[in-house]
Protein backbone atom coordinates (compact mmCIF):
# COMPACT_ATOMS: atom_id res chain seq x y z
CA UNK A 1 0.00 0.00 0.00
CA UNK A 2 1.40 3.34 -1.07
CA UNK A 3 -0.26 6.65 -0.30
CA UNK A 4 0.69 10.02 -1.64
CA UNK A 5 -1.02 12.99 -0.01
CA UNK A 6 -1.07 16.56 -1.33
CA UNK A 7 2.22 16.17 -3.17
CA UNK A 8 3.65 19.33 -4.67
CA UNK A 9 6.81 19.72 -6.73
CA UNK A 10 8.07 22.76 -8.56
CA UNK A 11 11.04 23.08 -10.96
CA UNK A 12 11.64 26.79 -11.32
CA UNK A 13 8.40 28.08 -12.84
CA UNK A 14 7.29 24.63 -13.99
CA UNK A 15 4.85 22.82 -11.74
CA UNK A 16 5.55 19.10 -12.03
CA UNK A 17 3.12 17.99 -9.31
CA UNK A 18 0.19 20.14 -8.30
CA UNK A 19 -1.46 18.88 -5.11
CA UNK A 20 -1.50 15.21 -6.08
CA UNK A 21 -3.10 12.61 -3.83
CA UNK A 22 -3.17 8.93 -4.74
CA UNK A 23 -3.69 5.60 -3.01
CA UNK A 24 -2.10 2.51 -4.50
CA UNK A 25 -3.55 -0.70 -3.01
CA UNK A 26 -1.25 -3.48 -1.87
CA UNK A 27 -0.58 -6.10 -4.52
CA UNK A 28 -2.01 -4.05 -7.37
CA UNK A 29 -0.34 -3.18 -10.65
CA UNK A 30 -1.04 0.50 -11.11
CA UNK A 31 -0.12 2.49 -14.21
CA UNK A 32 0.61 6.21 -14.07
CA UNK A 33 -0.46 7.31 -17.53
CA UNK A 34 0.00 10.70 -19.09
CA UNK A 35 1.74 12.72 -21.78
CA UNK A 36 5.32 13.88 -21.30
CA UNK A 37 5.56 16.66 -18.76
CA UNK A 38 2.41 15.48 -16.96
CA UNK A 39 4.36 14.73 -13.77
CA UNK A 40 4.00 10.93 -13.87
CA UNK A 41 7.76 10.27 -13.65
CA UNK A 42 8.20 12.90 -10.94
CA UNK A 43 5.45 11.21 -8.94
CA UNK A 44 7.11 7.80 -9.30
CA UNK A 45 10.55 9.17 -8.42
CA UNK A 46 9.06 10.90 -5.38
CA UNK A 47 7.69 7.56 -4.19
CA UNK A 48 11.19 6.11 -4.68
CA UNK A 49 12.86 9.01 -2.88
CA UNK A 50 14.89 9.96 -5.94
CA UNK A 51 13.10 13.32 -5.88
CA UNK A 52 12.17 15.26 -2.78
CA UNK A 53 8.73 16.82 -2.65
CA UNK A 54 8.31 20.52 -1.92
CA UNK A 55 5.23 19.60 0.08
CA UNK A 56 3.20 16.50 0.74
CA UNK A 57 3.52 13.10 2.37
CA UNK A 58 4.44 9.68 1.00
CA UNK A 59 3.79 6.51 2.97
CA UNK A 60 4.76 2.95 2.08
CA UNK A 61 3.04 0.15 4.01
CA UNK A 62 1.86 2.63 6.58
CA UNK A 63 5.27 4.12 7.26
CA UNK A 64 5.85 7.79 6.53
CA UNK A 65 8.87 7.77 4.19
CA UNK A 66 8.69 11.40 3.05
CA UNK A 67 12.11 12.17 4.52
CA UNK A 68 13.58 8.67 4.23
CA UNK A 69 16.38 8.27 1.63
CA UNK A 70 15.81 5.76 -1.23
CA UNK A 71 18.22 3.29 0.40
CA UNK A 72 15.80 2.66 3.26
CA UNK A 73 12.43 2.77 1.50
CA UNK A 74 12.29 -0.92 0.64
CA UNK A 75 11.76 -0.28 -3.06
CA UNK A 76 12.87 -1.80 -6.31
CA UNK A 77 13.31 0.64 -9.18
CA UNK A 78 13.61 -0.08 -12.90
CA UNK A 79 14.85 2.68 -15.19
CA UNK A 80 13.90 3.33 -18.81
CA UNK A 81 17.49 2.94 -19.98
CA UNK A 82 18.16 -0.11 -17.80
CA UNK A 83 20.89 1.55 -15.64
CA UNK A 84 22.84 -1.71 -15.86
CA UNK A 85 26.13 -1.77 -13.97
CA UNK A 86 28.29 -2.07 -17.08
CA UNK A 87 31.44 -3.30 -15.35
CA UNK A 88 29.65 -6.17 -13.60
CA UNK A 89 28.42 -9.49 -14.90
CA UNK A 90 24.72 -10.30 -14.95
CA UNK A 91 25.26 -12.30 -11.77
CA UNK A 92 26.95 -9.40 -9.97
CA UNK A 93 24.30 -6.97 -11.17
CA UNK A 94 21.50 -9.08 -9.72
CA UNK A 95 23.53 -9.81 -6.57
CA UNK A 96 24.32 -6.13 -5.93
CA UNK A 97 21.56 -5.37 -3.42
CA UNK A 98 22.21 -8.59 -1.51
CA UNK A 99 25.97 -8.08 -1.37
CA UNK A 100 25.36 -4.55 -0.04
CA UNK A 101 23.30 -6.22 2.67
CA UNK A 102 26.25 -8.55 3.35
CA UNK A 103 24.33 -11.79 2.81
CA UNK A 104 26.47 -14.95 2.78
CA UNK A 105 27.67 -16.00 -0.67
CA UNK A 106 25.70 -19.29 -0.90
CA UNK A 107 22.48 -17.42 -0.06
CA UNK A 108 23.22 -14.81 -2.73
CA UNK A 109 24.09 -17.43 -5.34
CA UNK A 110 20.89 -19.34 -4.68
CA UNK A 111 18.73 -16.23 -4.89
CA UNK A 112 20.47 -15.00 -8.06
CA UNK A 113 19.96 -18.36 -9.78
CA UNK A 114 16.32 -18.35 -8.74
CA UNK A 115 15.73 -14.86 -10.14
CA UNK A 116 17.64 -15.48 -13.37
CA UNK A 117 15.42 -18.53 -13.83
CA UNK A 118 12.29 -16.39 -13.35
CA UNK A 119 13.41 -13.74 -15.84
CA UNK A 120 14.70 -16.32 -18.28
CA UNK A 121 18.37 -15.39 -18.20
CA UNK A 122 19.80 -18.54 -16.62
CA UNK A 123 22.37 -19.04 -19.36
CA UNK A 124 23.60 -15.46 -19.18
CA UNK A 125 25.01 -15.46 -15.66
CA UNK A 126 28.58 -14.57 -16.61
CA UNK A 127 27.83 -12.20 -19.47
CA UNK A 128 28.31 -8.46 -19.30
CA UNK A 129 25.36 -6.11 -19.97
CA UNK A 130 26.97 -5.01 -23.25
CA UNK A 131 26.53 -8.59 -24.48
CA UNK A 132 22.76 -8.56 -23.89
CA UNK A 133 19.91 -7.21 -26.01
CA UNK A 134 17.76 -4.36 -24.72
CA UNK A 135 14.99 -6.70 -23.64
CA UNK A 136 17.44 -8.96 -21.80
CA UNK A 137 19.04 -6.00 -20.06
CA UNK A 138 15.67 -4.82 -18.84
CA UNK A 139 14.81 -8.30 -17.54
CA UNK A 140 18.16 -8.32 -15.74
CA UNK A 141 17.30 -4.93 -14.23
CA UNK A 142 13.98 -6.37 -13.06
CA UNK A 143 15.71 -9.34 -11.45
CA UNK A 144 18.14 -6.95 -9.77
CA UNK A 145 15.27 -4.86 -8.39
CA UNK A 146 13.39 -7.96 -7.18
CA UNK A 147 16.48 -9.50 -5.53
CA UNK A 148 16.12 -7.41 -2.39
CA UNK A 149 12.46 -8.41 -1.91
CA UNK A 150 11.14 -4.86 -2.22
CA UNK A 151 7.82 -3.87 -0.71
CA UNK A 152 7.02 -2.01 -3.89
CA UNK A 153 8.32 -2.28 -7.43
CA UNK A 154 8.55 0.98 -9.36
CA UNK A 155 9.03 0.98 -13.12
CA UNK A 156 9.81 4.19 -15.02
CA UNK A 157 8.78 3.67 -18.66
CA UNK A 158 10.48 0.28 -18.52
CA UNK A 159 9.73 -0.68 -22.12
CA UNK A 160 10.08 2.77 -23.66
CA UNK A 161 13.50 2.13 -25.19
CA UNK A 162 12.57 -1.21 -26.76
CA UNK A 163 11.17 -1.92 -30.19
CA UNK A 164 7.46 -2.66 -30.63
CA UNK A 165 7.60 -6.47 -30.74
CA UNK A 166 9.85 -6.85 -27.68
CA UNK A 167 7.74 -4.27 -25.87
CA UNK A 168 4.49 -6.26 -26.23
CA UNK A 169 6.26 -9.50 -25.27
CA UNK A 170 7.78 -7.98 -22.14
CA UNK A 171 4.47 -6.39 -21.25
CA UNK A 172 2.71 -9.75 -21.26
CA UNK A 173 5.64 -11.24 -19.38
CA UNK A 174 5.51 -8.50 -16.72
CA UNK A 175 1.81 -9.12 -16.20
CA UNK A 176 2.45 -12.86 -15.68
CA UNK A 177 5.36 -12.10 -13.36
CA UNK A 178 3.15 -9.80 -11.31
CA UNK A 179 0.49 -12.50 -11.04
CA UNK A 180 3.16 -14.81 -9.61
CA UNK A 181 5.09 -12.41 -7.37
CA UNK A 182 2.20 -10.15 -6.23
CA UNK A 183 4.47 -7.28 -5.30
CA UNK A 184 2.77 -3.87 -5.33
CA UNK A 185 3.85 -2.44 -8.68
CA UNK A 186 3.67 1.06 -10.11
CA UNK A 187 4.41 1.52 -13.78
CA UNK A 188 4.90 4.84 -15.56
CA UNK A 189 3.93 4.94 -19.21
CA UNK A 190 2.76 7.35 -21.90
CA UNK A 191 1.37 4.46 -23.94
CA UNK A 192 -2.37 4.03 -23.26
CA UNK A 193 -2.39 0.60 -24.88
CA UNK A 194 0.35 -0.55 -22.53
CA UNK A 195 -1.56 0.80 -19.52
CA UNK A 196 -4.83 -0.84 -20.61
CA UNK A 197 -3.00 -4.09 -21.28
CA UNK A 198 -1.02 -4.66 -18.06
CA UNK A 199 -2.51 -2.53 -15.31
CA UNK A 200 -5.41 -3.34 -13.05
CA UNK A 201 -5.62 0.32 -12.06
CA UNK A 202 -4.75 3.40 -14.04
CA UNK A 203 -4.15 6.94 -12.83
CA UNK A 204 -4.29 9.46 -15.66
CA UNK A 205 -2.10 12.51 -15.11
CA UNK A 206 -2.12 15.79 -16.96
CA UNK A 207 -0.19 18.97 -16.18
CA UNK A 208 0.80 17.83 -12.72
CA UNK A 209 -2.71 16.79 -11.69
CA UNK A 210 -4.51 13.49 -11.51
CA UNK A 211 -7.46 13.56 -13.87
CA UNK A 212 -8.97 10.20 -12.99
CA UNK A 213 -8.13 6.97 -11.22
CA UNK A 214 -9.86 3.67 -11.89
CA UNK A 215 -9.77 0.28 -13.53
CA UNK A 216 -9.14 0.17 -17.29
CA UNK A 217 -12.74 -0.57 -18.22
CA UNK A 218 -14.15 2.31 -16.18
CA UNK A 219 -11.62 4.74 -17.57
CA UNK A 220 -12.29 3.68 -21.14
CA UNK A 221 -16.08 3.57 -20.91
CA UNK A 222 -16.72 6.31 -18.38
CA UNK A 223 -13.91 8.82 -18.65
CA UNK A 224 -14.35 11.72 -16.26
CA UNK A 225 -13.52 14.35 -18.86
CA UNK A 226 -12.45 15.08 -22.40
CA UNK A 227 -8.78 14.70 -21.62
CA UNK A 228 -9.07 11.20 -20.19
CA UNK A 229 -11.35 10.21 -23.02
CA UNK A 230 -9.02 11.40 -25.77
CA UNK A 231 -5.91 10.09 -24.03
CA UNK A 232 -7.24 6.55 -23.67
CA UNK A 233 -8.28 6.11 -27.28
CA UNK A 234 -9.28 7.91 -30.44
CA UNK A 235 -12.36 10.15 -30.34
CA UNK A 236 -14.82 11.74 -32.73
CA UNK A 237 -16.83 14.86 -32.10
CA UNK A 238 -20.45 14.35 -33.02
CA UNK A 239 -22.44 17.54 -32.56
CA UNK A 240 -21.71 18.62 -29.00
CA UNK A 241 -20.68 15.13 -27.91
CA UNK A 242 -17.30 13.48 -27.82
CA UNK A 243 -17.58 9.77 -28.59
CA UNK A 244 -15.45 6.79 -29.56
CA UNK A 245 -15.45 6.26 -33.35
CA UNK A 246 -16.56 2.66 -32.84
CA UNK A 247 -19.67 3.85 -30.98
CA UNK A 248 -20.97 5.65 -34.02
CA UNK A 249 -23.53 3.76 -36.09
CA UNK A 250 -24.18 4.65 -39.70
CA UNK A 251 -27.45 4.26 -41.54
CA UNK A 252 -28.52 4.99 -45.11
CA UNK A 253 -32.15 5.57 -44.09
CA UNK A 254 -32.79 8.71 -42.00
CA UNK A 255 -36.13 7.47 -40.61
CA UNK A 256 -34.59 4.18 -39.54
CA UNK A 257 -31.74 5.99 -37.81
CA UNK A 258 -34.16 8.34 -36.01
CA UNK A 259 -36.24 5.41 -34.79
CA UNK A 260 -33.24 3.63 -33.34
CA UNK A 261 -31.88 6.85 -31.85
CA UNK A 262 -35.09 7.47 -29.95
CA UNK A 263 -34.29 4.43 -27.79
CA UNK A 264 -30.98 5.93 -26.66
CA UNK A 265 -31.26 8.34 -23.74
CA UNK A 266 -29.44 11.67 -23.84
CA UNK A 267 -28.45 11.12 -27.43
CA UNK A 268 -27.01 13.78 -29.67
CA UNK A 269 -29.57 13.03 -32.35
CA UNK A 270 -29.01 11.97 -35.92
CA UNK A 271 -26.52 13.83 -38.05
CA UNK A 272 -26.39 13.71 -41.82
CA UNK A 273 -22.89 13.46 -43.23
CA UNK A 274 -21.10 12.98 -46.54
CA UNK A 275 -18.65 10.08 -46.90
CA UNK A 276 -15.20 11.43 -47.77
CA UNK A 277 -13.19 8.26 -47.69
CA UNK A 278 -13.56 4.61 -46.71
CA UNK A 279 -10.42 3.01 -45.27
CA UNK A 280 -10.32 -0.76 -44.81
CA UNK A 281 -8.04 -1.70 -41.90
CA UNK A 282 -8.51 -5.46 -41.85
CA UNK A 283 -11.40 -6.29 -39.56
CA UNK A 284 -12.24 -2.65 -38.99
CA UNK A 285 -13.30 -0.09 -41.52
CA UNK A 286 -12.78 3.60 -40.85
CA UNK A 287 -15.18 5.98 -42.55
CA UNK A 288 -14.07 9.60 -42.80
CA UNK A 289 -17.15 11.83 -42.78
CA UNK A 290 -18.07 15.49 -43.12
CA UNK A 291 -21.14 16.60 -41.23
CA UNK A 292 -23.67 19.07 -42.67
CA UNK A 293 -22.15 21.65 -40.33
CA UNK A 294 -18.84 21.16 -42.15
CA UNK A 295 -17.22 19.42 -39.18
CA UNK A 296 -15.14 16.35 -39.99
CA UNK A 297 -15.25 13.16 -37.91
CA UNK A 298 -14.52 9.48 -38.29
CA UNK A 299 -16.58 6.39 -37.57
CA UNK A 300 -15.23 2.91 -37.05
CA UNK A 301 -17.50 0.10 -38.20
CA UNK A 302 -17.05 -3.60 -38.74
CA UNK A 303 -16.21 -5.08 -42.09
CA UNK A 304 -19.63 -6.72 -42.28
CA UNK A 305 -21.52 -3.46 -41.62
CA UNK A 306 -19.40 -1.72 -44.21
CA UNK A 307 -20.20 -4.42 -46.77
CA UNK A 308 -23.93 -4.21 -45.99
CA UNK A 309 -23.91 -0.43 -46.37
CA UNK A 310 -21.77 -0.53 -49.54
CA UNK A 311 -20.42 2.93 -48.79
CA UNK A 312 -18.59 4.96 -51.38
CA UNK A 313 -17.06 8.43 -51.26
CA UNK A 314 -19.52 11.23 -51.94
CA UNK A 315 -22.60 9.45 -50.61
CA UNK A 316 -24.75 10.73 -47.75
CA UNK A 317 -25.26 8.69 -44.57
CA UNK A 318 -26.88 9.31 -41.19
CA UNK A 319 -24.73 8.97 -38.09
CA UNK A 320 -25.90 8.48 -34.52
CA UNK A 321 -24.37 7.45 -31.21
CA UNK A 322 -24.97 3.80 -30.61
CA UNK A 323 -23.49 3.32 -27.14
CA UNK A 324 -23.93 6.24 -24.81
CA UNK A 325 -21.78 4.62 -22.12
CA UNK A 326 -18.62 6.16 -23.49
CA UNK A 327 -20.05 9.63 -23.74
CA UNK A 328 -18.29 11.99 -21.43
CA UNK A 329 -20.90 13.16 -19.01
CA UNK A 330 -22.20 16.57 -19.95
CA UNK A 331 -21.46 18.00 -16.55
CA UNK A 332 -17.86 16.98 -16.83
CA UNK A 333 -17.54 18.64 -20.22
CA UNK A 334 -19.07 21.81 -18.85
CA UNK A 335 -16.52 21.68 -16.06
CA UNK A 336 -13.48 21.40 -18.33
Amino acid at each position, binding site marked *: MITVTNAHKQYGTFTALDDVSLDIPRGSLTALLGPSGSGKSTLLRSIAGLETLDAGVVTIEGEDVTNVPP*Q*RRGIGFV*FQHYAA*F*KHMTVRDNVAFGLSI*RKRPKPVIDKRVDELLEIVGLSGFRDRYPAQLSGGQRQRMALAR*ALAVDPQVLLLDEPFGALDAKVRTDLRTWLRRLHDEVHVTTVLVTHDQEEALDVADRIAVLNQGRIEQVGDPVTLYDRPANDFVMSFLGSVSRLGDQVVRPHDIALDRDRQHALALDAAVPASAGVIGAVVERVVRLGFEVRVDLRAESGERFAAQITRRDANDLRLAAGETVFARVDQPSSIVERMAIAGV
Partner: protein
Amino acid sequence: MNVTQQTRVGLRTVALGYLFVLLALPIGVILYRTFEPGLSEFFASISTPAAISALNLSLLIVAIVVPLNVVFGVVTALALVRGRFRGRGLLQAVVDLPFAVSPIVVGVALIMLWGAGGWFGALDRSGFTVIFGLPGMVIATIFVTLPFVVREVEPVLHEIGTDQEQAASTLGATGWQTFWRITLPAIRWGLTYGVVLTVARALGEFGAVIMVSSGFAGVSQTLTLLVHARYIDDHNTYGAYAAATLLMGIALVVLLLMTVLDRKRSNR
Protein backbone atom coordinates in the same frame (compact mmCIF):
# COMPACT_ATOMS: atom_id res chain seq x y z
CA MET B 1 37.55 11.08 -51.93
CA ASN B 2 39.34 9.59 -54.91
CA VAL B 3 43.10 9.72 -54.64
CA THR B 4 45.45 8.28 -57.20
CA GLN B 5 48.00 5.69 -56.14
CA GLN B 6 50.75 8.23 -56.69
CA THR B 7 49.23 10.91 -54.45
CA ARG B 8 48.59 8.37 -51.73
CA VAL B 9 52.19 7.19 -51.69
CA GLY B 10 53.32 10.81 -51.77
CA LEU B 11 51.14 11.80 -48.82
CA ARG B 12 52.33 8.85 -46.80
CA THR B 13 55.95 9.67 -47.50
CA VAL B 14 55.47 13.26 -46.37
CA ALA B 15 53.68 12.24 -43.16
CA LEU B 16 56.20 9.58 -42.26
CA GLY B 17 59.14 11.82 -43.16
CA TYR B 18 57.71 14.55 -40.92
CA LEU B 19 57.37 12.16 -37.98
CA PHE B 20 60.81 10.73 -38.61
CA VAL B 21 62.66 14.03 -38.70
CA LEU B 22 60.80 15.61 -35.79
CA LEU B 23 60.32 12.65 -33.45
CA ALA B 24 62.22 9.52 -34.35
CA LEU B 25 65.48 11.13 -35.39
CA PRO B 26 66.22 13.13 -32.19
CA ILE B 27 65.32 10.15 -30.01
CA GLY B 28 67.35 7.87 -32.22
CA VAL B 29 70.38 10.15 -31.92
CA ILE B 30 70.15 10.11 -28.12
CA LEU B 31 69.79 6.34 -28.02
CA TYR B 32 72.69 5.92 -30.45
CA ARG B 33 74.97 8.22 -28.47
CA THR B 34 73.97 6.54 -25.21
CA PHE B 35 74.69 3.00 -26.24
CA GLU B 36 77.60 3.71 -28.61
CA PRO B 37 80.26 3.25 -25.89
CA GLY B 38 78.58 0.09 -24.64
CA LEU B 39 76.08 -0.93 -21.98
CA SER B 40 78.55 -0.87 -19.08
CA GLU B 41 79.36 2.74 -19.75
CA PHE B 42 75.64 3.55 -19.71
CA PHE B 43 75.04 1.76 -16.41
CA ALA B 44 78.07 3.44 -14.87
CA SER B 45 76.72 6.83 -15.88
CA ILE B 46 73.23 6.28 -14.48
CA SER B 47 74.43 4.73 -11.24
CA THR B 48 76.53 7.61 -9.98
CA PRO B 49 75.29 8.89 -6.60
CA ALA B 50 73.95 12.04 -8.28
CA ALA B 51 72.02 10.04 -10.88
CA ILE B 52 70.53 7.64 -8.33
CA SER B 53 69.53 10.54 -6.10
CA ALA B 54 67.96 12.33 -9.08
CA LEU B 55 66.00 9.22 -10.05
CA ASN B 56 64.79 8.81 -6.48
CA LEU B 57 63.76 12.44 -6.23
CA SER B 58 61.85 12.30 -9.50
CA LEU B 59 60.02 9.15 -8.42
CA LEU B 60 59.34 10.64 -4.98
CA ILE B 61 57.76 13.71 -6.55
CA VAL B 62 55.64 11.45 -8.78
CA ALA B 63 54.64 9.37 -5.77
CA ILE B 64 53.44 12.49 -3.91
CA VAL B 65 51.83 14.26 -6.84
CA VAL B 66 49.86 11.37 -8.36
CA PRO B 67 47.72 10.48 -5.29
CA LEU B 68 47.01 14.15 -4.61
CA ASN B 69 46.00 14.73 -8.23
CA VAL B 70 43.83 11.61 -8.25
CA VAL B 71 41.88 12.67 -5.16
CA PHE B 72 41.47 16.32 -6.06
CA GLY B 73 41.04 15.56 -9.75
CA VAL B 74 38.14 13.17 -9.15
CA VAL B 75 36.49 15.49 -6.62
CA THR B 76 36.85 18.47 -8.97
CA ALA B 77 35.54 16.49 -11.94
CA LEU B 78 32.53 15.36 -9.88
CA ALA B 79 31.88 18.94 -8.82
CA LEU B 80 32.14 20.21 -12.39
CA VAL B 81 29.85 17.54 -13.86
CA ARG B 82 27.31 17.02 -11.07
CA GLY B 83 27.48 20.24 -9.12
CA ARG B 84 25.12 23.14 -9.64
CA PHE B 85 26.86 25.96 -7.84
CA ARG B 86 27.87 29.56 -8.41
CA GLY B 87 31.31 29.96 -9.93
CA ARG B 88 31.23 26.66 -11.80
CA GLY B 89 32.26 28.43 -15.00
CA LEU B 90 35.11 30.10 -13.16
CA LEU B 91 36.31 26.74 -11.84
CA GLN B 92 36.22 25.34 -15.39
CA ALA B 93 38.52 28.13 -16.53
CA VAL B 94 40.84 27.84 -13.52
CA VAL B 95 41.38 24.12 -14.13
CA ASP B 96 42.70 24.90 -17.61
CA LEU B 97 45.02 27.63 -16.34
CA PRO B 98 48.14 25.40 -16.18
CA PHE B 99 47.71 24.71 -19.91
CA ALA B 100 47.73 28.41 -20.63
CA VAL B 101 50.46 29.60 -18.27
CA SER B 102 54.10 28.96 -19.14
CA PRO B 103 55.77 26.72 -16.52
CA ILE B 104 58.52 29.28 -15.95
CA VAL B 105 55.86 31.83 -14.97
CA VAL B 106 54.50 29.26 -12.52
CA GLY B 107 57.96 29.00 -10.98
CA VAL B 108 58.29 32.75 -10.63
CA ALA B 109 54.81 33.03 -9.11
CA LEU B 110 55.58 30.34 -6.56
CA ILE B 111 58.73 32.16 -5.49
CA MET B 112 56.72 35.36 -5.06
CA LEU B 113 54.23 33.49 -2.93
CA TRP B 114 56.30 31.03 -0.90
CA GLY B 115 59.80 32.59 -1.05
CA ALA B 116 61.38 34.30 1.97
CA GLY B 117 60.02 37.69 0.82
CA GLY B 118 56.66 36.37 -0.42
CA TRP B 119 53.15 36.47 1.05
CA PHE B 120 53.60 33.15 2.80
CA GLY B 121 57.26 33.94 3.51
CA ALA B 122 56.74 33.61 7.24
CA LEU B 123 56.74 29.84 6.78
CA ASP B 124 60.11 29.99 5.03
CA ARG B 125 61.60 32.29 7.65
CA SER B 126 60.42 29.95 10.41
CA GLY B 127 62.70 27.29 8.98
CA PHE B 128 60.35 25.24 6.80
CA THR B 129 61.87 25.49 3.34
CA VAL B 130 59.30 25.52 0.59
CA ILE B 131 61.14 27.22 -2.22
CA PHE B 132 64.48 25.54 -3.01
CA GLY B 133 63.23 22.45 -1.22
CA LEU B 134 61.08 19.41 -1.96
CA PRO B 135 57.76 21.13 -1.08
CA GLY B 136 58.39 23.78 -3.72
CA MET B 137 59.11 21.21 -6.40
CA VAL B 138 56.01 19.24 -5.44
CA ILE B 139 53.80 22.33 -5.54
CA ALA B 140 55.22 23.37 -8.90
CA THR B 141 54.62 19.87 -10.31
CA ILE B 142 51.08 19.77 -8.96
CA PHE B 143 50.38 23.10 -10.63
CA VAL B 144 51.45 21.96 -14.08
CA THR B 145 49.81 18.50 -13.84
CA LEU B 146 46.52 19.57 -12.24
CA PRO B 147 44.27 19.47 -15.34
CA PHE B 148 45.11 15.96 -16.56
CA VAL B 149 43.01 13.83 -14.19
CA VAL B 150 40.13 16.34 -14.18
CA ARG B 151 40.00 16.59 -17.97
CA GLU B 152 40.22 12.84 -18.50
CA VAL B 153 37.61 11.92 -15.89
CA GLU B 154 35.11 14.67 -16.72
CA PRO B 155 33.90 13.35 -20.10
CA VAL B 156 33.56 9.83 -18.69
CA LEU B 157 31.38 11.13 -15.86
CA HIS B 158 29.24 12.96 -18.42
CA GLU B 159 28.87 9.80 -20.42
CA ILE B 160 27.88 7.45 -17.60
CA GLY B 161 25.25 9.85 -16.22
CA THR B 162 23.59 9.29 -12.86
CA ASP B 163 21.28 6.36 -13.66
CA GLN B 164 23.65 3.68 -12.37
CA GLU B 165 24.30 5.60 -9.16
CA GLN B 166 20.58 6.11 -8.59
CA ALA B 167 19.98 2.42 -9.24
CA ALA B 168 22.64 1.58 -6.65
CA SER B 169 20.98 3.87 -4.11
CA THR B 170 17.57 2.24 -4.63
CA LEU B 171 19.29 -1.10 -4.00
CA GLY B 172 20.45 0.14 -0.62
CA ALA B 173 23.98 1.36 -1.32
CA THR B 174 25.17 4.37 0.67
CA GLY B 175 26.96 7.27 -0.98
CA TRP B 176 30.38 5.78 -0.22
CA GLN B 177 29.41 2.29 -1.35
CA THR B 178 28.03 3.74 -4.58
CA PHE B 179 31.23 5.68 -5.18
CA TRP B 180 33.54 2.71 -4.59
CA ARG B 181 31.43 0.07 -6.33
CA ILE B 182 29.83 2.00 -9.17
CA THR B 183 31.32 5.41 -9.88
CA LEU B 184 35.01 4.56 -9.47
CA PRO B 185 34.97 1.41 -11.62
CA ALA B 186 33.04 3.34 -14.28
CA ILE B 187 35.62 6.14 -14.47
CA ARG B 188 38.59 3.81 -13.97
CA TRP B 189 39.90 4.11 -17.51
CA GLY B 190 39.65 7.85 -17.72
CA LEU B 191 41.43 7.96 -14.38
CA THR B 192 44.18 5.60 -15.56
CA TYR B 193 44.83 7.72 -18.59
CA GLY B 194 44.87 10.88 -16.48
CA VAL B 195 47.42 9.27 -14.14
CA VAL B 196 49.66 8.23 -17.05
CA LEU B 197 49.63 11.76 -18.42
CA THR B 198 50.32 13.12 -14.93
CA VAL B 199 53.27 10.78 -14.43
CA ALA B 200 54.76 11.62 -17.81
CA ARG B 201 54.42 15.34 -17.23
CA ALA B 202 55.68 15.16 -13.62
CA LEU B 203 58.78 13.29 -14.74
CA GLY B 204 59.43 15.64 -17.62
CA GLU B 205 58.59 18.97 -16.01
CA PHE B 206 61.55 21.34 -16.23
CA GLY B 207 60.63 25.01 -16.41
CA ALA B 208 58.62 25.32 -13.21
CA VAL B 209 60.82 22.96 -11.23
CA ILE B 210 64.15 24.59 -12.13
CA MET B 211 62.86 27.90 -10.75
CA VAL B 212 62.02 26.49 -7.33
CA SER B 213 64.86 23.98 -6.94
CA SER B 214 68.27 24.77 -5.53
CA GLY B 215 69.59 22.28 -8.07
CA PHE B 216 72.26 20.70 -5.87
CA ALA B 217 73.41 17.40 -7.27
CA GLY B 218 72.42 14.57 -4.95
CA VAL B 219 70.04 16.80 -3.01
CA SER B 220 67.50 18.69 -5.06
CA GLN B 221 68.13 17.58 -8.61
CA THR B 222 65.40 15.75 -10.46
CA LEU B 223 66.21 13.67 -13.52
CA THR B 224 65.35 16.46 -15.91
CA LEU B 225 67.47 18.90 -13.91
CA LEU B 226 70.30 16.34 -13.97
CA VAL B 227 70.15 16.14 -17.76
CA HIS B 228 70.33 19.92 -17.91
CA ALA B 229 73.12 20.25 -15.36
CA ARG B 230 75.29 17.57 -16.92
CA TYR B 231 74.96 19.10 -20.33
CA ILE B 232 75.26 22.81 -19.50
CA ASP B 233 77.31 22.98 -16.30
CA ASP B 234 79.48 19.86 -16.37
CA HIS B 235 79.95 19.67 -20.13
CA ASN B 236 79.37 15.97 -19.58
CA THR B 237 77.54 15.37 -22.85
CA TYR B 238 77.55 11.63 -22.52
CA GLY B 239 76.16 11.78 -19.01
CA ALA B 240 73.33 13.97 -20.26
CA TYR B 241 72.51 11.44 -22.98
CA ALA B 242 72.52 8.57 -20.52
CA ALA B 243 70.26 10.41 -18.05
CA ALA B 244 67.91 11.38 -20.87
CA THR B 245 67.71 7.75 -21.95
CA LEU B 246 66.83 6.73 -18.39
CA LEU B 247 64.10 9.36 -18.33
CA MET B 248 62.73 8.09 -21.62
CA GLY B 249 62.92 4.54 -20.32
CA ILE B 250 60.66 5.36 -17.38
CA ALA B 251 58.22 7.20 -19.60
CA LEU B 252 58.18 4.20 -21.93
CA VAL B 253 57.41 1.81 -19.08
CA VAL B 254 54.47 4.01 -18.05
CA LEU B 255 53.24 4.14 -21.62
CA LEU B 256 53.54 0.37 -22.00
CA LEU B 257 51.67 -0.15 -18.76
CA MET B 258 48.88 2.05 -20.06
CA THR B 259 48.71 0.16 -23.35
CA VAL B 260 48.51 -3.17 -21.56
CA LEU B 261 45.74 -1.89 -19.30
CA ASP B 262 43.97 -0.40 -22.30
CA ARG B 263 44.07 -3.72 -24.11
CA LYS B 264 42.56 -5.39 -21.08
CA ARG B 265 39.68 -2.95 -21.29
CA SER B 266 38.99 -3.50 -24.98
CA ASN B 267 38.98 -7.25 -24.44
CA ARG B 268 35.91 -6.87 -22.26
